[in-house]
């Protein structure tokens, strides 16, 4: 974390010694979902930071190591809870949809796009 910003690097790409901003596509998707719901007025940013802080605090209370690499796991858990609390979705629906994606993935050969039966789009 003590590297100097190298001017030769492509400008504007927020990377550091720890690697790219998002370490996996799902982190970026979870990040974007929270912003998109906030943009739509589903919750205030204060509500969001409180939900995230509560999640981080709860993880610490459980003894979950918090070295910064699990940040988006906390982010996702906070997002699920806040979306549920706001009535945007519910636990049953989330679980059913998760199982559907799991089944769809397992039924899809490697390299083929994974789609849910009867649903269009991402």
């Amino acid at each position, binding site marked *: 974390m003590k590297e100097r910003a190298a001017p030769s690097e492509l400008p504007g790409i927020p990377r550091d010694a720890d690697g790219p901003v998002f370490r996996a596509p799902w982190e970026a998707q979870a990040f974007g979902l929270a912003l998109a*719901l906030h943009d739509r007025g589903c919750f205030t940013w204060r509500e969001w930071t409180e939900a995230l802080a509560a999640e981080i605090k709860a993880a610490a209370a459980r003894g979950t190591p918090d070295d910064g690499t699990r940040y988006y796991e906390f982010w996702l858990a906070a997002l699920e809870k806040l979306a549920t609390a706001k009535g945007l979705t519910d636990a049953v629906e989330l679980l059913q949809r998760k199982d559907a994606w799991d089944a769809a993935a397992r039924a899809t050969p490697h390299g083929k796009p994974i789609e849910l039966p009867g649903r269009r789009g991402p």
Partner: protein
Amino acid sequence: MRGDHHDHDHGSHFSDTELRVKALESLLVDKGLVDPAALDALVDTYETKVGPRNGARVVAKAWTDPAYKEWLLRDATAAIASLGYTGRQGEDMVVLENTPQVHNMVVCTLCSCYPWPVLGLPPVWYKSAPYRSRAVIDPRGVLAELGVALGPDVEVRVWDSTAEVRYLVLPERPAGTEGWSEDALAAIVTRDAMIGVAQVPAPGEGSAR
């Protein structure tokens, strides 16, 4: 991720975490709460367009333009917006000037509030529990570990970010940069210096460790 070594021979596989994200995203899209194209655009912006170079431009301008610096310290949000750096998590900005007498450093003790429009997304260490807690308890110790040696007469001020207010540190301009252009100055400003956990080294001074 975890426990995902079965079934690879026959089908595709998502980790448990990936499945949760897919489930949430697809439900929100189906309900019309999230537009997939807008989601992609958001992610792309933060992955490739926003970063600490924006903050470095702000610092370089303040170093070379006294009127801009005065404006920046008085109304950071407007002064930063005048350079085109606006947007979420930058709505209410405060700039803290480091001087030979005062060293400012920024933390978010509760989560990881951070001035996205000028610094991009926070680095992993900023989000880590050790930094979040130790920056407040023992700022001098943290700074020393990071290679920032401050004299005993320098006052250290730690600023805890909130959902409402975001801080950007205006580092001290290093000696030996007199007459440098804004571009040249911007190139030596580091992200860590704008968080207040590093100093901008003088040119020729063995850069970083």
